[in-house]
């Protein structure tokens, strides 16, 4: 059903719940919603994933194109991430040019992947100075019940891990899997009722305040951080969620590895 659009009463209720260390759906503070992941549901994409977290459902599709390398980087290919939240995703998503939110979503997920170096852009070179692969990740939301960030990031990395370079179609060799050197995973924490919770749902996002997105790679390396919306947080709060993110990252990594289709 729909989200109550009553920030006033909702916020008070969320505050009350937070005082008792409770959440609207009964989860623990750092507990995530049930996750479903489908690998390569889209035949036309070179790699794809469908991720469901609670009632949030997203798709990620990986497409490859041939590009001419930039003159100052003749050995490198490219990576681009684009996020679109179409009106299908919710009553409050309007048609039109990309909103600030969807732009931020795309860029935050992009940074997490790019900064991790999981895709070696030198490895994307086909013919120096002439041809290189461009990897394009398109993120597409179908149902928004909060935390599109983590859903998109998870879908993107699963799609990449299961992507195949379409060399034969472009007549530049044999098809081969895209190689990733690590697995960046994002965990997002929203301040709801005065404290940070993991994997906020639609109601919590609506009635909550600032949020922090943490992308961690292998061996606990930090690849990107983003704080969104107005508000302040303390070092203690940050340490707490960083610790939580490390633990959660390991859990999600297990999930991602278990999906391998070899």
């Amino acid at each position, binding site marked *: *059903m*729909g989200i*109550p*659009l*009553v*920030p*006033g*009463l*909702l916020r*008070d*209720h969320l505050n*009350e*719940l937070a*005082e*008792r260390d*409770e959440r*609207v759906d*009964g989860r623990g503070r750092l507990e995530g919603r049930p996750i479903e992941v489908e690998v390569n549901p889209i035949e036309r994409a070179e790699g794809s994933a469908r991720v469901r977290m609670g009632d949030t459902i997203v798709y990620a599709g990986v497409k490859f194109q041939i590009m001419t390398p930039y003159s100052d980087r003749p050995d490198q290919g490219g990576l681009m991430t684009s996020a679109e939240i179409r009106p299908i995703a919710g009553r409050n998503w309007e048609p039109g040019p990309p909103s600030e939110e969807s732009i931020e979503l795309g860029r935050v997920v992009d940074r997490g992947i790019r900064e991790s170096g999981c895709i070696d852009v030198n490895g994307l070179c086909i013919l120096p100075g002439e041809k290189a692969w461009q990897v394009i990740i398109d993120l597409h939301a179908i149902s928004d019940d909060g935390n599109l960030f983590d859903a998109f990031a998870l879908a993107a990395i699963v799609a990449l891990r299961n992507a195949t370079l379409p060399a034969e179609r472009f007549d530049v060799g044999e098809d081969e899997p895209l190689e990733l050197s690590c697995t960046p995973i994002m965990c997002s924490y929203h301040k709801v009722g005065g404290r940070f919770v993991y994997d906020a749902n639609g109601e919590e996002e609506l009635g909550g305040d600032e949020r922090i997105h943490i992308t961690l790679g292998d061996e606990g390396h930090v690849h990107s951080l983003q704080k969104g919306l107005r508000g302040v947080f303390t070092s203690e709060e940050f340490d707490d969620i960083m610790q939580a993110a490390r633990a959660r990252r390991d859990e999600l990594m297990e999930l991602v590895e278990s999906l391998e289709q070899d």
Partner: protein
Amino acid sequence: MSDSGDVGRLVIPGDSLGEIGERRAGHGVLRRNGELIATRLGHLREKDGELSVNPVHTAYTPRPGDLIVGYVEGMRSNIWFIDIGGPFNAILPMSLAAGKVDFGATREYMDVGSTVLCRVQEVDENHGAVVTMKGMGLRKLNSGFVDTVPSHLLSRVVGVDGQMLKSIKEASDCRMVVGQNGRIWIEGDASGTRLARSALSVIREAGHRPDIESRVRGILDE
């Protein structure tokens, strides 16, 4: 395919319900070319020769006298626009507010996002409604929480002679007001509110099932 043996079956828009014969077309049924057809997704009902469809979903349409929980969506100097969950907003004129409001002071009195308990005063032929806050218990709600249940399941929330609602209120120790527009106001402590919401969640998921009462009791007894 035209007698009461079909009653209870699921029909989808366009399904033929047989020749008109002696029957009348009720809610969700249309007469066309000498036969009756379903226009709604739902379950077939027959009563006193009238064939109708009990829809699986209904958008709320206001009727005079309905008690509703609304949200203030906007205002002018002498009027508020209230989201009542129907196809469009209702209006609350200054003259029908709970107390005395000065012209132009509507925002101070009740701002956008306020939750109000009000009653439908009248409805015009285009389903546009005027609501009032003059009446017993009608007021701006400053605490508590609002949950939603599709309007066609409200009867399940209330139950026979109000028994279901009474059970939920007792088990959760919450005040509850059921708005005809499918919005239910709940006020109590955090765990009680969550229990009440769990009960409502069960009704949302399985309200059309015949064993709904025992399912809800199962939740309340936990």
